[in-house]
C-alpha cells in the first residue's frame, strides 16, 4: 500500500518540511506583509517578521475598496450557484445511477466531455447574450455559467456516491408508500450526504475562484466579486502591498476554514469524480 522513495529519518523530515513550506509559505508571507507598515516594507535587506505589527492595513483594505460588498457578492454568487448545481446534478446523477437508461453510456460521455470544455471560448457569446438580456452586471450573469461549470464534475461525484447506496433501502421505502422522487430525497440524498457535501465544496470553490467571467460580465462595483475587486487596490504605478495583502488574507480565510474542516471530503471529491484544476 505504501511506497517510500526516501529512507532514513532526517531525509524524510527534510522532505516533509519542504512540502509544508511549499504549501503554506506564500499565505504566511502575505500575513506577515499585511501586518507591516508601508515604510517597513521599503527597507533593504527586507525584514522577514514585522517589527511593529499593525492592523491599520486591514482597516484600509475595507475602506479603500468596498471589500465587504465584494465578499458578500462572491459568497452570494458561490452559494446560489452551488445550490443550483447540487439540485440539477442530484437529479441527473440519480437518473444515471439508478434508472435503466438506453443511452446511459452516451450521456455519461457527454458529461465527461463537457467537463473539459474550455469556458473561455464562451466569453464572447455569453457577453453578447447577457448584454441583450440586460443581465450584464447582475448576479444571474455569473450564477448560470458557474453552475454549468460545476454540474458535470458534481454529477460524476454524485453518481459514484449513489452507486454505493444499497437499492434495497429505496425499495423498502417505496413499499412503505414512498414515491420514487420521495425516496430520492428522503433516503438516497441523506445517505449520500458526504457525497452531496463533497460535490458542494467543489462547486463552491469553482465559483469562488473564477476570475475571467467575473471581470468581463460584472464590471460595475455593485456586482463585483472578490477576486476582481482585489486587483483594484493597485493604481497605475502604485502597489500598496500591505493593503493588498490584508485584502488577500480576508479573501483567503473563508475558503481556508472550509478546506481545513472538510479536507478529507475535498480530497475524495477531487479524486472520485472528474477533476477541475
Amino acid at each position: 500500500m505504501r511506497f517510500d522513495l526516501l529512507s532514513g529519518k532526517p531525509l524524510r523530515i527534510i522532505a516533509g518540511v519542504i512540502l509544508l513550506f511549499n504549501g503554506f509559505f506564500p499565505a504566511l508571507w502575505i500575513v506577515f506583509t499585511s501586518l507591516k507598515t508601508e515604510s517597513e516594507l521599503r527597507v533593504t535587506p527586507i525584514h522577514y517578521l514585522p517589527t511593529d505589527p499593525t492592523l491599520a492595513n486591514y482597516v484600509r483594505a475595507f475602506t479603500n475598496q468596498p471589500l465587504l460588498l465584494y465578499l458578500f457578492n462572491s459568497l452570494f454568487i458561490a452559494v446560489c450557484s452551488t445550490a443550483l448545481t447540487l439540485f440539477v446534478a442530484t437529479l441527473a446523477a440519480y437518473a444515471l445511477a439508478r434508472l435503466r437508461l438506453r443511452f446511459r453510456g452516451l450521456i455519461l460521455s457527454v458529461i465527461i466531455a463537457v467537463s473539459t470544455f474550455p469556458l473561455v471560448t464562451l466569453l464572447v457569446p455569453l457577453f453578447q447574450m447577457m448584454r441583450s438580456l440586460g443581465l450584464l452586471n447582475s448576479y444571474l450573469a455569473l450564477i448560470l455559467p458557474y453552475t454549468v461549470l460545476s454540474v458535470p464534475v458534481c454529477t460524476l461525484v454524485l453518481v459514484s456516491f449513489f452507486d454505493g447506496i444499497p437499492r434495497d433501502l429505496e425499495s423498502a421505502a417505496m413499499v412503505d408508500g414512498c414515491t420514487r422522487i420521495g425516496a430520492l430525497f428522503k433516503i438516497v440524498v441523506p445517505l449520500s450526504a458526504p457525497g452531496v457535501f463533497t460535490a458542494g465544496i467543489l462547486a463552491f470553490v469553482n465559483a469562488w475562484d473564477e476570475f475571467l467571467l467575473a471581470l468581463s460580465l460584472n464590471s460595475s462595483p455593485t456586482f463585483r466579486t472578490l477576486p476582481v475587486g482585489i486587483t483594484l487596490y493597485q493604481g497605475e504605478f502604485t502597489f500598496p502591498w500591505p493593503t493588498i495583502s490584508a485584502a488577500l488574507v480576508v479573501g483567503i480565510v473563508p475558503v481556508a476554514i472550509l478546506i481545513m474542516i472538510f479536507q478529507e471530503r475535498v480530497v475524495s471529491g477531487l479524486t472520485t469524480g472528474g477533476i477541475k484544476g
Partner: protein
Amino acid sequence: MSQAVADRQETEERQTVGGRFARLMDMGDGALAFWLLLPTAVLLLAIIVYPVCRLIYTSFLSLSLTSGLPASFAGLQNYRDMFADPVFWSSFWNTVIITVVTVPGALVVGMALALIANIPFRQRWAFRLALLVPWALPLAFCGLIFAWFFQSDYGIVNDVLRRLGLPTVIWFNSYAWATVAICLTTIWKTSSFMALIILAGLQTIPRSLYEAAEIDGAGRVRQFFEITLPLLRPAIAVALIFRTITALQTFDIPYTMTRGGPGTSTVTLAMYIRQNTVDFLDLGYGSALAVAMFALSMIVTVFYLRMIRRGA
C-alpha cells in the same frame, strides 16, 4: 427480490393513488429519466450549445459595437485578419509556451510532492492541507501574491538572490523574465492538484508488489520506474488532460502579474480574446480568436484520448 416487490408495489400504487402529481412521481424509468435529466440538458443547451453555435456564426460577421454599424456578413475576413495579426501570433505562442512548460513542470513537481505526502508521517492532515491550500487559492490571488514575491526592490525572491550573492533580476521589465515568473507561479499553483491526484493513485498500489520487487533485489529507484510509474499512468493521463485544457485558457495569473506587459509581450490568447471583446467591443474578431482557441483545445483532447486508447 426487493426490486420485484417494489415493482409490484409500484403498479398497485399507480392504480390506487389518484391525482396527476402522484402519477407523475411514479412514472416509468424512461419518462422519469427524461424529467430528471431535463434541467441539466436545458442548462447545457442554453450555456454551452447555443453559445458555441452563436460564437461560430459571429466569427463570420463584421460586428464591432464601437463602430455603431449593424452586423454584416464578412466571410473569412476575421480569420484573415487574425492570421495577419502579430499580437494574435505572440499571444498564441505565449499560450503554447506556458502550456508546454507548466504542464510537465507541474507533473514533475506534483509527483515529488505526492511522494513526500505519501510518507507515513504522524500529522498527515497537515501535509494534506499543504496540498489543498494552493489548490483552493484563487488563481487571481496567486498571481498577486507572486507578483509581490517577484517585486524587484522589496520582493522576497530578489532578497534571497541578494543574500546568496547572486545578481538580482527586474522580473517584469523583460518578456523573458516575466514569462519565467508567470511559469513558476503557474507551476506552484497547479502542482498541488497534480500531487493530490497522484497521491490517490499511489495509495491504490498494493504493497505486495514492492515486497516482491524487494525480494528480487530491485532498488528503490528501479521500483519507482517499474512499478509506481506504470501503475500511475491512468491517474496521470486524466490529470494531464484537465491540466492542459486549463493551461490553454491561462488568463488570471498573467493578467494579475503583468497585465500583458511589458507592452503586449506576455498577453495570452485568453487575454487577447477578452481585450477584443470587452475593451474593444469587436465581437466578430473576438469570436474568431475564440474559435481558434476552441480548435486548439479540441486538438489537444483528441491527441490525449488517442494516447490513452493506445496505452490501454
